[in-house]
């Protein structure tokens, strides 16, 4: 029983971390119809920034700086690699995103020498607490709570502020939004800023658990978060969050199955099998809207 509780808790926590990354995918897709392949690598860079900053700075400065620097990185990526391609075919922008993804990985390899870097211990998060007799890291408890708070804030922003209204408008129709006087590029930048800030928070929670940052470590959580976003219906924020929790929990359960069954190594394959099955039965994902063709 204790084992089951601890598996579930860690599943929820992993899901929460995927959720923070998945929101960035789904928001950018919602506005630009772009799968931002570089997003997972931005997440990795956020991890590295945390390591290098914490070497000299106290944590209470490191953590906000990680978020700020990650946001700046994402802003610059959008302006340099995506904005010039605004009227280009979608495929070109996607290729540009793949290019940025490899650039970030290569730069990370260059900077770290390809060695796994150890993420700093954040005292509050790494400390253990007993939940129903199971020793659990604080980060495991904190992640889902933080995710829920952030998602509520984000939903409020999107539904009840002027910039949120502009985001909803721009995601439907660039040209008419421009006719309203909306500066499209600002709204797109805002989207990248929100997505990358959440990914930076996700990186702090994730690497507190997994501790080693390598140049390619963003790929797998990035990919799973993307799967979560598609699973939930890409473009939908609640969809991405729910998808991420489902994937995180399922994956952790499979990893925790008795070793005699020998299935735990297939947990990643399971994630993608799940995606395929969902897409066969519901191509738009859980909360995806039907693509409306313009007449």
């Amino acid at each position: 029983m204790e084992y089951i509780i601890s598996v579930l808790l860690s599943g929820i926590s992993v899901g929460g971390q995927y959720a923070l990354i998945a929101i960035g995918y789904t928001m950018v897709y919602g506005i630009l119809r772009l799968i931002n392949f570089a997003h997972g690598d931005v997440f990795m860079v956020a991890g590295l920034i945390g390591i290098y900053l914490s070497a000299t700075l106290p944590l209470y400065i490191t953590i906000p700086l990680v978020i700020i620097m990650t946001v700046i990185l994402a802003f610059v990526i959008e302006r340099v690699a995506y904005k010039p391609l605004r009227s280009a075919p979608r495929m070109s922008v996607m290729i540009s995103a793949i290019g940025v993804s490899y650039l970030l990985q290569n730069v990370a390899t260059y900077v770290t020498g390809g060695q796994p870097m150890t993420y700093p211990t954040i005292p509050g998060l790494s400390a253990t607490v007993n939940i129903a007799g199971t020793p659990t890291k604080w980060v495991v408890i904190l992640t889902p709570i933080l995710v829920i708070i952030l998602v509520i804030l984000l939903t409020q922003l999107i539904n009840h502020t002027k910039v949120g209204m502009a985001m909803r408008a721009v995601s439907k129709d660039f040209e008419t939004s421009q006719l309203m006087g909306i500066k499209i590029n600002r709204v797109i930048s805002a989207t990248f800023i929100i997505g990358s800030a959440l990914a930076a928070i996700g990186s702090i929670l994730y690497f507190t658990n997994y501790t080693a940052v390598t140049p390619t470590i963003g790929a797998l959580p990035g990919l799973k978060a993307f799967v979560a976003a598609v699973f939930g219906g890409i473009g939908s924020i609640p969809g991405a969050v729910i998808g991420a929790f489902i994937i995180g929990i399922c994956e952790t359960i499979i990893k925790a199955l008795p070793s005699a069954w020998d299935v735990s190594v297939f947990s990643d394959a399971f994630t993608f099998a799940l995606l395929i099955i969902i897409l066969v039965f519901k191509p738009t994902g859980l909360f995806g809207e039907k693509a409306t063709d313009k007449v």
Partner: protein
Amino acid sequence: MLKINDLKVNYGGIEAVKGISFEVNEGSIVTLIGANGAGKSTTLRTIAGLVKPRSGSVEFLGEDITGMAPNDIVARGITLVPEGRKIFADLTVLENLKIGAYMRKDNLNDDIEWVYSLFPRLKERSWQAGGTLSGGEQQMLAVGRALMSRPKVLMMDEPSLGLAPLIVRDIFTIIKEINKQGVTVLLIEQNANMALKTADTGYVLETGRITLTGAGEELLSNEAVKAAYLGT
């Protein structure tokens, strides 16, 4: 007020507008009529800043606004009601109106009331999603949304498109009413009959060139216009 000088615009690889000049005087209703592909929409889209002209200029209140970004043009007081209405279907009616005033930072309540007084139907539906409105209501919302930016010049791209004749008449009544309240109107239409009856001045556009100019009533009785656009 608004002066177009020898405007040439390429659109989709062809020269859609081949050097047109016309003028819109303050307080007037001006219409460009012409067949599909004559370059009417391209002209309005160029004035609105969505398309950059190849050459020529757009002058507004003495200022050269050629090639400015759409938001700068809206800020100067020219707003386009796009073809096909382009209501934000997921936003409520009220949100659609608010987004029309996106550039403004002052209080919108008076303007919202003004739009509701022009279109009482919108008030009844203010919490409904824009996409649930009928075609005529959507056209009203599109006009109301454009008015929220407090335009000096309201440009309308085919407001009668796809609407029942009775609704079309309502829309044109409203256009006259808005004009009476001090908004200059630049209108393009395939429904030449309605447009010319409403307009002070009309221009006939054929394959990117202006071929005829005159007062609305004058063009209505012009034999060439009758034959080509009025079917009488």
